[in-house]
């Protein structure tokens, strides 16, 4: 296996990791999958694309605008789609309905503006490839990998070391008891959505760079779901490990089998994995104890 494939796989995996952690964060507080996460990625990437169109700004401003858009979309989504359901302790079915509805709505709005066209972000890198000896590595892969890692490290720091992170973890384990500690759970859940939205925005732009922008780009969120299931639902570390594994396996299979069979093989591997370890890699850590 060449270095090129490995780096490509890790870079792809690091984007999946952004998707998977953003998704897992919300899973933690809602105990349910946020199916609007994918459309949030698409919508925030498109917002950045159209707002900065022709301005000739670099990658960083694009990411910042997309992150802000993602945060805003997630905030609105939390308020409209989830807050009442959460406060009333309603059945998970309502989360399903409202998250799917929100996702469809975002996608619809993007389609109205963008039609069914494909859009390309401007070329962000003056040298598209880096040569190391005989190996050719794409600059965007390296940059996306580095930025993803920085984002994930910041996330890990927030979750593990800050007052907000502790509150978020406490809520993930037991929202009622967290409130008895003086934690304003509504506020913390709002902030969780903001963080998840920021991650969605960055992931959206990266997917756009890698695969071009189109209104159903968000369906790639499936890779994030898969990664977070492989990792153990709700575990952020697990999600990152699962995502990188998925990215690398996918890229290797792609180079061996070609695009058609590699997708099938990837899903088959995942099903087999879940057959033997349904709780995922980190599963036991996140199980609730009585």
């Amino acid at each position, binding site marked *: 296996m060449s270095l090129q494939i490995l780096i490509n796989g890790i870079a792809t995996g690091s984007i999946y990791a952004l998707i998977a952690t953003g998704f897992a964060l919300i899973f933690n507080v809602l105990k349910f999958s946020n199916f609007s996460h994918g459309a949030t990625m698409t919508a925030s990437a498109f917002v950045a694309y159209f707002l900065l169109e022709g301005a000739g700004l670099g990658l960083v401003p694009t990411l910042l605008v997309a992150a802000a858009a993602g945060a805003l979309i997630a905030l609105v989504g939390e308020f409209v789609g989830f807050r009442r359901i959460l406060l009333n302790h309603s059945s998970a079915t309502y989360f399903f309905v409202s998250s799917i509805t929100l996702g469809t709505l975002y996608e619809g709005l993007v389609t109205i503006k963008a039609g069914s066209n494909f859009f390309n972000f401007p070329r962000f890198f003056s040298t598209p490839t880096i040569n190391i000896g005989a190996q050719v590595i794409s600059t965007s892969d390296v940059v996306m990998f580095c930025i993803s890692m920085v984002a994930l490290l910041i996330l890990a720091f927030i979750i593990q070391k800050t*007052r907000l992170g*502790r*509150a978020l*973890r*406490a809520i*993930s*384990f*037991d929202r*009622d*008891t*967290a*409130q*008895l*500690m*003086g*934690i*304003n*759970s509504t506020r913390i859940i709002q902030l969780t959505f903001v963080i998840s939205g920021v991650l969605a925005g960055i992931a959206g732009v990266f997917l756009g760079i890698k695969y071009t922008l189109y209104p159903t780009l968000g369906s790639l969120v499936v890779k994030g779901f898969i990664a977070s299931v492989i990792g153990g639902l709700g575990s952020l570390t697990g999600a990152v490990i699962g995502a990188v594994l998925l990215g690398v396996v996918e890229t290797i299979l792609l180079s061996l089998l070609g695009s058609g069979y590699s997708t099938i093989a990837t899903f088959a591997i995942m099903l087999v994995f879940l057959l033997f370890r349904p709780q995922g890699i980190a599963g036991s*850590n*996140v199980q*609730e*104890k*009585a």
Partner: protein
Amino acid sequence: METILKVTGLSVSYGHVEALRGVDVDVRRGQIVSIIGANGAGKTTLLRTISGMVKPLAGTIEFEGKPLPKKPHKIVAEGVIHVPEGRKCFSGLTIRDNLLTGGYVFKGRDLNEDLQEQYKLFPILEQRKNQYAGTLSGGEQQMLAVARGLMGRPKILLLDEPSMGLAPIIVNQIYDLIRQIRDRGITVLLVEQNARKALGVCDYAYVLENGRINLQGTGEELLGSDEVRKAYLAG
């Protein structure tokens, strides 16, 4: 001694089920006040209503002469700290993080001193501070739950069934601890099914039956009452 917590005419319903019907409770500063009663009498509901987790249908709750705020996190900030039934430690957080969560309301304050104070009171927690709370035994989890409550610097500590499911020797330790907490000047409102223990430790007690206060008096008075003996101390 003046009243610190005054509950007047409190009624609570879950759907069509009336859990509390016109409950009056007075807690005086610096005392241990016990609420005893059978399963389903409304004890936990009473505490959950005080801490804002359940909305009352009618009645008022006054703390230090003022009505309590409505939201749980604001009630905690007033110094009304509820240690829930079943301990409810955050099993996937370390013991240290559990304690720090207990001091959540003190934004920007260095909690190290408070931590050291709890470690002095509960040396076992210091030894295991980096372990997940889920690895502790039931008795240790109860200690952690109380220590976590103390991190919030309570003026009044609401304790829900601290002896539940624990071995007698551990129960004794917990009750010694409750006395120590009172002796530090923290008022305690204790809810228990273990009537003998609760009446033995308290300064004043109420008997809750089907959502109503049936009897009240000092611990000794109730321990001596035929009614209490028959219903709660049999055996």
